[in-house]
């Protein structure tokens, strides 16, 4: 079983989803929880079996179109491992705390399909396979927003679909051209990432290919100025849609930067480092300001998501082990925290059917447990030490400081602007006197909701206090990426900016 664990992880939810069509709708929820729980346990088993010191593991290969070197090639390393676990974890939590009443069976089947595509994306090591899963993931999300969303759901879902799809098409062209270059260089076709890693491209080609991939990834992240689909998607999506979207789907973009852009195009990464850093800083500061201006609490969380993704992008493009490890860790952290915040917004939306902060106020006295959990997650979101976000945010900024002091100083305002929008939103919703009559009788969080929230609180603090089990495998895999980049780099600047790990231990000592 060990050698097929990844295939099982990818296709088990899909098979279970198909089987789900014949399940009676009353037992759909129990069925969904069971499947998601099995899948989650399997992903933990994967972690258990994973060797933190090894490279790519659990690889499986089966040729699909051998004439063009397209194959079913999957594997995990420290970078993808935890995002896979994050996906299975959130599918489980999402289904377990589902409060949706409409067409519950269809929703669960959709979620299980979505789980397949998510695990597939993060396990793929073949570009075409990656692309297929990447695009497939749009379909279930399109349904979730379009079928279970708010009043503007059709507009939001089509915007989400077309926007990301357009970006992905450009990325696909980039992939095809990359394979063509590989063919020119070696005489054989391959879409295997591991083969591609060995290819050293001239800078000019790198720049164009980097740009093509970038468009696909940047829209997914979403990076400024490609972010405007996100507020609509979150605004209209049901809670479960927002949770999965923020916690996992956005990570596809930043993950792809680490998996594709950096190791394939090290010189281009260096060349584009500062332009991207500027976009990242705009994401951090500008979207934080936009978040501060929001009247709808879900939009605050949505924009805060973009702001935090800016820190992740910045960490990724610090191009050193500290920063990239931090950004990968922050992907997990942001998944946990933003997912939890969307779940929390869902709790109050279920009760009041509004998300406007002006409708609330004084909730701390009516729903103390809810206010406490929200408070913990808010503090995690603003990056308080000993919460999960701090580790990632600190390392990301620390890493980029090596590249530029001034940029990091500006980007570091994330910790200020983040506190401003979060604290003021919390104040509006939870503090003050209860002004609306209908808020006086609100029920505190119930068992179903706690089922989703409590594990997230535990993870947010546990990995903040003791990040080592996650950070160590990430660190080892990131080291491999950075060393590969350094070895492949051709320009003098790139050689300098990407550290050589073979003899750079502790210059100061």
């Amino acid at each position: 079983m060990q050698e097929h664990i990844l295939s099982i992880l990818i296709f088990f939810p899909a098979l279970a989803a198909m089987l789900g069509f014949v399940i009676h709708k009353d037992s759909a929820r129990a069925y969904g929880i069971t499947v998601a729980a099995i899948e989650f346990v399997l992903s933990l088993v994967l972690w258990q079996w994973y060797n933190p010191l090894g490279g790519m593991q659990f690889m499986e290969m089966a040729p699909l179109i051998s004439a063009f070197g397209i194959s079913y090639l999957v594997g995990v390393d420290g970078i993808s491992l935890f995002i896979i676990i994050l996906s299975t974890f959130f599918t489980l939590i999402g289904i377990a705390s589902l409060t949706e009443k409409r067409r519950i069976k269809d929703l669960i089947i959709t979620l299980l399909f979505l789980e397949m595509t998510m695990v597939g994306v993060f396990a793929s090591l073949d570009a075409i396979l990656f692309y297929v899963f990447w695009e497939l993931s749009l379909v279930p999300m399109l349904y979730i927003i379009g079928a279970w969303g708010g009043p503007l759901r059709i507009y939001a879902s089509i915007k989400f679909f077309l926007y990301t799809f357009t970006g992905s098409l450009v990325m696909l062209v980039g992939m095809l051209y990359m394979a063509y270059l590989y063919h020119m260089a070696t005489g054989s076709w391959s879409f295997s990432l591991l083969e591609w890693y060995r290819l050293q491209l001239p800078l000019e080609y790198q720049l164009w290919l980097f740009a093509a991939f970038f468009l696909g990834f940047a829209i997914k992240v979403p990076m400024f100025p490609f972010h405007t689909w996100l507020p609509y998607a979150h605004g209209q999506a049901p809670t479960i849609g927002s949770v999965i979207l923020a916690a996992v789907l956005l990570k596809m973009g930043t993950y792809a930067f680490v998996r594709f852009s950096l190791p394939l195009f090290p010189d281009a990464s260096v060349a584009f480092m500062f332009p991207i850093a500027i976009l990242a800083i705009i994401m951090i500061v500008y979207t934080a300001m936009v978040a501060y201006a929001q009247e709808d609490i879900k939009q605050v969380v949505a924009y805060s998501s973009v702001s935090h993704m800016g820190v992740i992008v910045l960490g990724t493009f610090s191009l050193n082990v500290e920063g990239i490890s931090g950004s990968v860790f922050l992907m997990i952290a942001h998944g946990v925290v933003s997912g939890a915040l969307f779940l929390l917004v869902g709790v109050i939306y279920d009760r009041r059917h509004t998300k406007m902060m002006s409708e609330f106020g004084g909730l701390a006295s009516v729903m103390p447990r809810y206010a406490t959990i929200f408070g913990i997650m808010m503090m995690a979101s603003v990056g308080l030490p000993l919460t999960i976000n701090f580790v990632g945010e600190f390392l990301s900024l620390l890493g980029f400081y090596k590249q530029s002091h001034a940029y990091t100083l500006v980007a570091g305002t994330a910790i200020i602007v983040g506190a401003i929008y979060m604290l003021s939103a919390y104040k509006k919703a939870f503090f003050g006197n209860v002004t609306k009559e209908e808020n006086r009788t609100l029920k505190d969080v119930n068992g179903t909701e706690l089922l989703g929230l409590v594990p997230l609180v535990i993870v947010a603090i546990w990995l903040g206090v003791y990040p080592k089990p996650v950070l160590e495998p990430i660190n080892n895999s990131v080291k491999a990426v950075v060393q590969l980049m350094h070895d492949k780099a051709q320009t003098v600047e790139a050689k300098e900016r990407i550290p050589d790990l073979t003899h750079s231990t502790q210059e100061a000592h």
Partner: protein
Amino acid sequence: MEIYLYIALFAPLVGSLFAALFGASPKTLITGLVASGLLFASFVSSALLLGHVMNGHIVHVEMMTWIATGDLYIPFGFVVDQVSVTMMMVVSVVSTVVHVYSIGYMSHDKGFNRFFSYLSAFVFSMMVLVMSDNFLGLFIGWEGVGLCSWLLIGFWYHKESATWAANEAFIMNRIADLAMLIGIFMIYWNLGSLQYDVVFAHIGTLPLAVTTGIGIFLFIGAMGKSAQFPLHTWLADAMEGPTPVSALIHAATMVTAGVYLVVRSNPIYTLIPEVGTAIATLGAFVAMFAATMALVNRDMKRIIAYSTLSQLGYMFVAAGLGAYWVALFHLMAHAFFKALLFLGAGNVMHAMHDELDPFKMGGLKKSMKVTWIFMTLASVALAGIYPLAGFFSKDLILEVAFVEQHYVLYGVLLATAGMTAFYSFRLVALIFHGDERHLEHGIHPHEAYTFMLYAMAPLAILAVVAGMMFKTPYYLMVSELLPAAQYHIHNHMTLWIMIIGTQALVIAAIAYAYKKYAKAVKVDLKVESGFFYQLLFNQYYIPKIYDEIFSKPYLQLSKIAWKQIDLKIVDAMVDGIANLIYQTGESTHTMQNGNLSSMLRWMVVGVVVLLVLAVAFTVAYNNAVNLHAM
């Protein structure tokens, strides 16, 4: 000894978690008792560790790894040395007193359990701050106390002013924290470690410019926590929190964290005396600046808060001039008498039904004798009259400035000492002497619970004896770690003139305050409507200025960013492109309407276009080839 270290550190955390279990339930006395008991255990452990350190031993433990990636390695490491044990004693003594006091003070509050949970969590964070053996560990505590401060300032969260002040404190501290993080980044990338021992051993190898940068950024971090100008406004607003909180957090411990940071980083600051002078100058400025605001204020707690600010300025003068042990000594002495002063103010507030304006009080010495004695003692200590604590610590700072030949700083501090004595006794005179003005408002004051007074007694004793008894043993202890400079004025004549002159000035200020406020209070309208009075009364208009130039524009700009830029430019462009494509399809789909003759016409058009293109490309290609050939 390690076990005592862990008890001192984690007992408050256990207390906090225990109280948190009852967080949402109605008042249970047990939470207060357990939290106080655990704090006492922490105090006893700290005292045992103090004995151990005084014998010349240092306890250093590494509990476990926290963050390790790349070359970065940060453990949860804790060190009990001469400096941290001093801080541990201050923190554990004051917090034990405040915990016991709070059992009485908060007894009618429905958030009783929650309060103890926050208060103990604060002590835990503070312990982490002072005991960590590396800069990031300190940062954990640093942010932790910030969180607890936010929770406790906004403890009465239904009050708009309280939650506003809580957010202000948190955000303003965050601004300084960014600078501190940058300082930490600089240390890491230049020295490869954040452990104190490694950093301090190698700091001398760095170029002076880098060391200066580190020193400046760390100090900006310190300015936030210690509320130095221009990040000072949050401290006075923080008085919205319950009074025991003000005593513990916003007087004795958290606000001194900045001083602790500078003292701890003394190997860095010793290398950059120019930065030290700047720190001292800012400190002297803040000392006077805050004292002037305290002169006219009409809010009892704010007066004491400004006094705290002013005393923090004194500490920074000492630290900036390299007299680290003097700064730490004043930190300790100040913690005792300032906490006492605040707790006394808490008694008065309870008696006065939360009235804060001392002009509406008076004559309370009849009904609140013990509180009167305590607050007078604390004020005498604060004024620096022999032989109370302030005389030994505060006047020492004056001597430091004099010996280091910073005569301007000396002059400023001396004038400030006079103001300190005046505003302190203005407060005492207004509250405890003169007519019982509160009777008009139908208030009949009563003394606080006896056990609260007993709880305050240790602080009163310390305020009296701490200077006299602790100075020598303290000096002998910390001089093993901190630069051991003695600040003696060798000319006896000068020394006696200085001591007597300072004492005379202070006593005169006290006498003037009594004369003006102890009998009848006359309101001098001419003075009060004057420019200077209004300037000081409005805190130099700084809060208003901040509101106008930072808060409001930021909100405006945010709204513009959302409604004008994000919706009307960025998003509209995306929709515009999509619409353009859609419209093109709409307007050209008639081409394929199935009408044979129109489709043939379009086919002809297409063929012609293709032909033209083919010819054009061929010509261009041939030209290019020819050019190459030539």
